[in-house]
């Protein structure tokens, strides 16, 4: 359950380490789940990479602490966002 003002750990090697969610794409949605696209602001980054601090970026949510329910009944829960 990712919403505005949620800090997320970045899972790829773009250079950002944490981003802050500022918007969830899709018509006026409040909660983002795994697989949703969000707009975020880079809060911490590794130096000398493509992405820098306070860049506005789009991101896909891949892990959530909230349980993900799958149609086959499988429920998965991660340790971070």
């Amino acid at each position, binding site marked *: 359950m990712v919403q505005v003002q949620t800090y997320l750990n970045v899972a790829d090697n773009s250079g950002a380490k944490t981003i802050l969610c500022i918007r969830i794409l899709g018509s006026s949605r409040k909660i983002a789940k795994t697989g949703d696209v969000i707009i975020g602001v880079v809060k911490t980054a590794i130096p000398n990479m493509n992405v820098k601090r306070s860049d506005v970026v789009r991101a896909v949510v891949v*892990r959530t602490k909230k349980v993900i329910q799958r149609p*086959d*009944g*499988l*429920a*998965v*829960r991660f*340790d971070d966002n």
Partner: protein
Amino acid sequence: MVVKTEVCTFSGSRIYPGHGITYVRLDNKAFKFVSAKVKCYFQHRWNPRKLAWTQMYRRLHKKGTLEETQKKRTRKIVKGANKAVVGASLDIIKQKRNQKPEVRAAAREAALREVKERNRAKQAAKKTAPKPSGGKPMDKPMGKQPKAPKGGGKGGMRR
């Protein structure tokens, strides 16, 4: 229809589809829990080996029928050579295999004695010959074996 069931990492019971939770930790290790009870125990860092209703405990304390847990181990029985080899036909191999130990020992001793005789003769020949040019022509030892071959020497299997 056969349904694929998972195994709970804590209690060892089967997880049918639609039940349980998979928890993926930050170090990418996945744990499957069959119920909230099991999940709670895990989060409180209980050791399943100390809880009597888990499979781990039962295995540790050897509860339940041993036949289920023990697997039959079939040992490979190594039979003697059943094929004929280039140097010896099957009959000879069987003969050698079935030789009695006394016969083998006697044969071994005979071979040893033979080698000793040969060596003694060679030594004697060396002593009597005054010089290599004037003396008897000495034959080169023709592929003699330093040790006595075992089993009276298998025919044709000498190396």
